[in-house]
């Protein structure tokens, strides 16, 4: 049995190929790590969604439980949790990220 908040999160994860749960909005990010994460994805040019988890403590708590990951930002690619840029950066260096993104956006070059 999933709760309404879990349903909402699962729907968001399924809707957005690249999804960042962060602090603030794209136009007014409220955390250096959120900005860093946006910049990280900006260079790839794929569309991403940033959802502000700051106003909703219950949702933040649920997200942390679902991912077993205590901090924001939290990044999902193609429905899968990948932590934050401390995880994505080394994956990028090893050439593991590009194939993931390509698989998430098969229609784009």
């Amino acid at each position: 049995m999933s709760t309404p908040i879990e349903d909402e999160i699962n729907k968001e994860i399924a809707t957005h190929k690249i999804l960042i749960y962060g602090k603030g909005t794209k136009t007014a990010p409220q955390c250096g790590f959120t900005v860093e994460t946006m910049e990280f994805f900006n260079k790839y040019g794929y569309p991403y969604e940033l959802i502000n988890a700051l106003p909703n403590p219950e949702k933040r708590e649920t997200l942390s439980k679902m991912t077993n990951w205590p901090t924001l930002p939290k990044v999902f690619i193609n429905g899968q949790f990948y932590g934050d840029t401390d995880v994505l950066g080394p994956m990028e260096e090893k050439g593991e990220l590009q194939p993931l993104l390509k698989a998430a956006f098969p229609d784009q070059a």
Partner: protein
Amino acid sequence: MSQMMTFEDLSTQLQEALGDAEVSVLDRTGTMDHFTVKVISDAFEGKNLLDRHRMIYQALDAPMKDGRIHALEIQAKTKNEAKGG
């Protein structure tokens, strides 16, 4: 306000959780609550980055919950990986 973390507190807590860990800590902002930790430990052997970071978060659960650590940037390597660069 709770007491600040020292570099030593951070290192000690990580070493207690991860055994043989080599820990280096940086204060990112000069405020002693935004840290970069580099941890080298064979406890990470066979674990992906997500799980390594979870181990570190778990070791620092208390100071992260009470706000002594506001933000944490993490690098986690095994001894072999650290040797390789």
